[in-house]
């Protein structure tokens, strides 16, 4: 299909909006009526047609505007993109992975022509036509990781693997759920996850690390994670907390449906071939609560999940103060009917909201 790219903002006047197409394909993260941590990994080898799982790097209607927002964040704070010296090879690996994937998965939008190390990359949505020499940094306007991630939705953590651990040694992080690359750079898997409550005691990270260390070439993996964000703001960074934290106090019973967004991360994991590093793309999808509840199954389920979420998790995810307001709003879309298992909207089989 040809994607119509939105002209929209993720700050200031917040003109971001999901089309019906984007709502229908939203990666709703709850497969049952409650939520607790789990490693919840699965293979990332495609998915239902049109879903966000189908392609290796999903491109949607927000692409062009998200890339403009990223450029703006980087102009104000260049430390959102960092790569330690030994990670340049991994950057080339990532550039190759994304260019090859996008040109194969979206041939109408992206083209890659290769003649040995002479590469020609065409990105039609962003109007980019670049000839360069693969593995020669001087032929690109930025380092390879920065170059390609300025053209790809989602944050990217590029993890070096050594000593049976993963190290946050490079990344492009401008659409994050309140964590900082500049703070985490050089940390290992346990260090950068230290702030997460409960999961350490549950042994989640030991198991997750063991899985990730063994993600192999040709066998990428994926999972979903989620939080809540007031206003469709991509850059919820600690660096800018003074700008967005205060917005959490602007929720009212009248505006909660429009302003409160469910924020879902499609996290994928690819082994990079030349460097043996692991790339961890974290793709953020936002949806207003009023759009969530337009799907009856999702409205019922989200109410139950948010209502019953343990207090530590609601605190960690940053919406403990607004939870009563959110639950009160969502309760109007929960008629108590049973929900079908799985994350899919099931619009044809699930009954509409009963008055």
């Amino acid at each position: 299909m040809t994607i119509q790219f939105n002209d929209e903002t993720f700050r200031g006047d917040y003109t971001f909006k999901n089309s019906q197409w984007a709502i229908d394909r939203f990666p709703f993260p709850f497969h049952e009526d409650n939520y607790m941590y789990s490693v919840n990994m699965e293979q990332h080898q495609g998915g239902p047609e049109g879903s966000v799982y189908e392609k290796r790097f999903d491109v949607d209607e927000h692409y062009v505007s998200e890339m403009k927002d990223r450029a703006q964040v980087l102009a104000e704070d260049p430390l959102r993109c960092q790569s330690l010296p030994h990670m340049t090879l991994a950057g080339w690996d990532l550039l190759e992975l994304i260019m090859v994937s996008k040109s194969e998965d979206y041939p109408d939008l992206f083209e890659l022509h290769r003649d040995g190390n002479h590469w020609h990359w065409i990105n039609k949505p962003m109007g980019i036509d670049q000839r360069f020499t693969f593995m020669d940094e001087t032929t690109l306007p930025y380092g390879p990781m920065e170059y390609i991630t300025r053209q790809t939705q989602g944050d990217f953590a590029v993890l070096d693997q050594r000593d049976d651990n993963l190290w946050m040694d490079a990344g492009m992080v401008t659409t994050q759920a309140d964590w900082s690359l500049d703070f985490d750079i050089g940390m290992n898997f346990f260090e950068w996850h230290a702030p997460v409550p409960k999961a350490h005691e549950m042994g989640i990270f030991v198991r997750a690390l063991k899985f990730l260390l063994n993600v192999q070439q040709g066998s990428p993996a994926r999972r979903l994670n989620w939080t809540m964000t007031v206003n469709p703001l991509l850059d919820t960074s600690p660096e800018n907390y003074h700008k967005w934290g205060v917005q959490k106090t602007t929720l009212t019973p009248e505006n909660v449906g429009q302003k409160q967004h469910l924020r879902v991360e499609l996290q994928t994991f690819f082994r990079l071939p030349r460097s043996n590093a692991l790339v961890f793309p974290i793709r953020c999808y936002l949806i207003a609560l009023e759009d969530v509840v337009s799907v009856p199954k999702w409205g019922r389920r989200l109410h139950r999940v948010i209502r019953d979420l343990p207090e530590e998790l609601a605190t960690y995810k940053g919406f403990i103060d607004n939870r009563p307001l959110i639950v009160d709003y969502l309760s109007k879309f929960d008629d108590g009917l049973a929900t079908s298992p799985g994350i899919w909207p099931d619009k044809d089989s699930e009954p509409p909201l009963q008055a």
Partner: protein
Amino acid sequence: MSAGTRKIAVTVSDVVKVNELVTRFRFVPTDGAPLPTFSGGAHVVVEMQDGDVTRLNPYSLMSDPMDQSAYTISVRRDDEGRGGSLFMHTKVKPGDQMMISYPVNLFALDLRAKKHLMIAGGIGITPFLAQIKQLAAMNGNFELHYSCRSPALGSYADELTTAHPGRVHVYFDDQKQAIDLETLLDGQPLGTHIYVCGPKGMINWVRDKASALGWPREAVHYEEFLAPQSGKPFEVKLAVSNKVITVGEHQSLLEAMEAAGVDAPYLCRGGACGQCETDVIGYDGKFIHHDHWLEDEDKASGKKIMPCVSRFEGKTLVLDR
């Protein structure tokens, strides 16, 4: 939760006798699509269809990691082994179709290193061949010390010396040449990483010496694939799948489980990667641990076994599989 590895169909394009013990095999992709690039130190698991028996052996890739047209491996014939290397030497011919795994790297270069100091013994040279090609292309700083039995059995010694004069040092046992390890380790610049691949004795020698000289553990890398040892047949009860299987004399426990249709994850099949670690539910007898994955206390506890290389002697063994 097995990460698993994908497989690639390949055709054998060349079989070249390197010397009396070692033969080189070149694989090209059967479908003609480019092979994945890989990182120096990676191995593939080669599937061998030997009559009714499927043999799966890991071999380090020795070709240029950037070369997507072919992979090459070198196999040392082991006349005392269970037959995998003999099968490769005697049965595999150009034109044969085989399955190999995607590359897996358990012996990667630490790219932070200011200098890569490589120590190889015998057939342990193979992963270094790919790493040296990778480093040479990146102007990396490396030095190889390669110990082998004799000039006649020194696989690739001449090629390496010619291509990298001054960086490659070869030692022949039959000429009473030996690596002066203490002096070698003493003279290295800060930021050097050591890599060792060869017989178990050599790996232990290098690790112990480096440790005694105060090298950080993280700066010493090693890889040794063990071949499963033959032994007396033994019976195992698999509790989860509710099966009783017999492990044959020349079969590994992992192979016996696979033959019974029980899925057990693996990456290296050589006691190194830890993927096939299996919990013991009950036993009456003694374990014959061969791996170097489990800690000594795990081995002594009787609670864990690595079915790729380890065996059991006794009355009963019940596993959580």
